[in-house]
């Protein structure tokens, strides 16, 4: 079955069953690497993307439920040559160890900064509390989000 989906401002036609999780479409049909398969159960946040303006665990939403909603992934924020302020601040703060959770951290931080451009440390911790990181890089992530907020405010 063919679905029309708009990802990072690009329209795509994908041939997939309606109950295919969005994550599989993003990774396998569209070849994106940003969203990660972590737990597959909506528990870790590694697969996060912004769908219809909302932070979404793409492993746990079916293609049929996307409707007309636009999808923004990590790739849609910026590139290594032209990074988004969040991506730049994560590099500046070296806010990753293995980096597998970084997609979810950055997407959740993007969602936070869109709602609250000047978050306190507590706001950041609250917003990222459900993004799991096993390496223990949390404090650097909090600093990176703060740094990005300050850069975006300039």
């Amino acid at each position, binding site marked *: 079955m063919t679905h029309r989906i708009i990802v990072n401002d690009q329209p795509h036609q994908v041939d997939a069953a309606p109950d295919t999780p969005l*994550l599989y479409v993003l990774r396998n049909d569209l070849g994106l690497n940003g969203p990660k398969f972590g737990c597959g159960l909506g528990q870790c946040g590694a697969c996060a993307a912004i769908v219809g303006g909302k932070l979404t665990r793409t492993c746990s939403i079916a293609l049929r439920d996307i409707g007309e909603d636009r999808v923004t992934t990590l790739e849609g924020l910026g590139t290594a040559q032209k990074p988004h302020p969040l991506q730049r601040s994560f*590099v500046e703060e070296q806010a990753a160890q293995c980096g597998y959770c970084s997609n979810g951290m950055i997407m959740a931080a993007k969602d936070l900064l869109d709602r609250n451009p000047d978050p306190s440390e507590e706001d950041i911790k609250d917003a990222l509390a459900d993004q799991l990181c096993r390496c223990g890089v949390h404090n650097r992530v909090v600093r990176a989000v703060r740094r990005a907020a300050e850069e975006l405010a300039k």
Partner: protein
Amino acid sequence: MTDKGVSRRRFTQSLGIVVASFALAPGAVFGQVAGALPFSLRNNRQLEGWIRLEPDETVTVFTGKAELGQGILTALAQIAAEELDVAFDKIRMISADTSRGPDEQYTFGSQSVEQSGGAIRAASAQARAILLASAARRFGVRQEDLQAKAGTIASPAGKRATYWEVASADPELLKGDITAATAPKKPSDYSIVGQSIHRIDLPGKLTGAASYVQDMRLPGMVFARVVRPPRYGAKLVSLDEAAVRSLPVWWRSFATAISLRLLPSAKSRRSPPAMRWRRRRAGATTWCRFPIVPICEKS
């Protein structure tokens, strides 16, 4: 405990003695003793298997170790840049490609800088010495009178040549084996190693570049998922293959695995299909434990 038993405390005490004896061994500073061959060089002797000078004036450095977030590619690039005397940003790391670079077996046990770093340090020191010796012949001066800095060799009389110019004049120059006969730099002379610098792998990881095994996409690739028993000790006694076949067309039961009484797997041309497999295979497997009489359940 009995007299014959070894208590945990005694066991760990004896480990401590073993560790101490290693730590106190003379000349144990790996790779700094000329002639001592670092571990990873023993089966990977070719210099070109570790270091290549590229036409675009960069240096490709190969390691058999994989970046898992330890930052080793950055650390190994620092070691290469330091010993070669080239700028850090001229180093391009290739990781765990045994078709071109060294086979260093597993990446484990905090051994990557020790083993791969020791090898790259020896290889880089030797490559630098070979390049300097070649430049000395070309300039007609003694090797010890030459200075190398940022990939450029300079003579006291002001003659200059880059490493890449020296190497391109003799394609065989860096094709020999590593002997580790060249002493690497003293740590007190380091200017790149020991600096805290940004990880070279992070910009890619933070922008969605292909960085992980999961990001490899090969033609015709399928994914497999292990189906695990619902509880300890349960063995698979039957699998409803019809139920598996009723799954979408790309599903295949792993007939050999089933016939061998191994865990059945399913292949998919999509990602590891956790949720869907969980939902659709419900009841398709029967598992039993055998305490006295079989206790079975479907899963």
